[in-house]
């Protein structure tokens, strides 16, 4: 029996309590199959990062369940099989890039030998070879982002969860990440990522989910979403505006 790579059922999450309660997610359900590239879009504050933090059990859901590769999040161990890139990757400032990756590999249960083989390759792939022995504290935003990517891939996980992988990157870096995601897809990895860059989503994704104010407006094939003749951007703006109008009415 094969499980969906990621399965989210009737997820609800609010911050604060009483009258100040802010419902960040209401009744979100999603299912992502193995080998799929899934793009998660939505305006600022829609609840994308919240969903991702719930998937990693950094936040606890108010209601609903999450499963990754058939394992219940928060109850069973699955983290050796996922790679995570956070929205704002932060590392230990005084460790070097190489040491950071070494620590991550070790914590993921890799052997020293496997790590030593993998790190130079990843650094090379992310254009960080020269920076390998420099302390991360001195890295630029884009360099940290690329190190974050290497960090997510160090243990060669089956499922990748990226929160805005392209943010802070120069055009060359973005192009590289796009190439990387395409390559990972070729290898049969499942990729769940959020992004504001619609052209990237259009180029990479099989399926997309659109979330607005914590409500899932659409989830399904990318092709089916595109209204005939209009691009992703128009369709996206249209569905958000419609939702806003509906909520005012």
């Amino acid at each position, binding site marked *: 029996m094969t499980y969906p790579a990621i399965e989210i059922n009737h997820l609800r999450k609010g911050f604060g309590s009483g009258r100040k309660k802010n419902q960040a997610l209401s009744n979100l359900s999603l299912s992502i199959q193995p080998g799929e590239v899934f793009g998660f879009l939505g305006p600022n504050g829609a609840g994308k990062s*919240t969903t991702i*933090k719930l998937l*990693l059990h*950094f*936040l*606890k859901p108010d209601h609903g369940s999450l499963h990754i590769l058939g394992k219940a999040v928060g109850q069973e*161990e699955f*983290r*050796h099989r*996922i790679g*995570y890139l*956070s929205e*704002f*990757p*932060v*590392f*230990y*400032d*005084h*460790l070097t890039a190489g*040491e950071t990756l070494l*620590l*991550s590999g*070790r*914590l*993921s*249960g890799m052997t020293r030998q496997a790590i030593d083989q993998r790190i130079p390759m990843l650094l090379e792939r992310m254009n960080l070879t020269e920076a390998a022995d420099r*302390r991360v504290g001195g890295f630029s935003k884009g360099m940290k982002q690329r190190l974050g990517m290497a*960090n997510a891939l160090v*243990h060669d996980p089956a499922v990748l969860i990226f929160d805005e992988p392209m943010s802070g990157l120069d055009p060359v870096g973005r192009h590289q990440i796009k190439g990387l995601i395409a390559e990972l897809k070729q290898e049969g990895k499942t990729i769940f990522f959020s992004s504001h860059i619609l052209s990237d989503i259009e180029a990479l994704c099989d399926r997309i989910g659109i979330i607005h104010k914590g409500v899932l407006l659409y989830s399904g094939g990318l092709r089916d979403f595109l209204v005939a003749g209009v691009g992703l951007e128009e369709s996206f703006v249209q569905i958000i505006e419609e939702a806003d109008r509906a909520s005012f009415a």
Partner: protein
Amino acid sequence: MQALRKIWFLALSTCTEGIRHRALWAIVCMAALLTMANLGVTTLYSWDLGKVSVEFGLSAVAFTGLLLVFFLGMKILADDLERSRIFMLLSRPVSIWQYLTGKFIGLAMILLLATIILGLSAALSMRYVLWLYAAFVPPDFSWLTCVMALVCQWLSLVVVLALSVLCFSFARQPFVALLLAVSSYLVGQNMELLRRVVVENPQAGALAGQEQLVVALSWIFPNLSLFDKKYEAAYGMAFSGQEFVLLCLYAISYSALLLYLATLLFRRKELA
């Protein structure tokens, strides 16, 4: 086995991170200078030079250790949460107790290193004073007792560190955690005094007749004054190996308990 390895890697990286921090070396250098001030301060006293020197040296180590726990240690812990550095670690198969224990051991190793460096510099200055004023060397003075006193000093820092980890696991703001840790340190420091006042003095005011309460409190808050062996070292008083072992056991079991509680509290925490 796997769990222990992970804890070790976490400890090692925490230790590396701390050692490369400029704050650590600033504090340690200041303190080393302070212990050297021993040479100046002791000459102000015309009697008991030797004792003053030994007490002064050990106090400098204790004070520096506290600075390190409250500033460097708490900063490293706070940054993990504040700057969500913890995501990098907890997105891997690392459980909360492994994370907290790893951090704790790493920081304890930094404290040990600082204690050794400062112990050496204090010993040098003490050695010099005792050599200069040989007449004032406390009778029965023993370096072994000094080393044991130093180890006790470190143990008390380790307990304070465990206390800080606990404070972090439930306070939302790092500042609140710092405040809580400092105040429980102060309570712990004066616990023995309070206990003695209440138990030995029938007219102890509001706490009179509350011996049980006070004894209970002295068990809840760490009895840090037990670790204070400066006096014994300065006066060359006997300090039995048995007492030393008991103190070690007390520090270890108390810290383990605090870390366990911290784990329970931390599990319920939202990390965002």
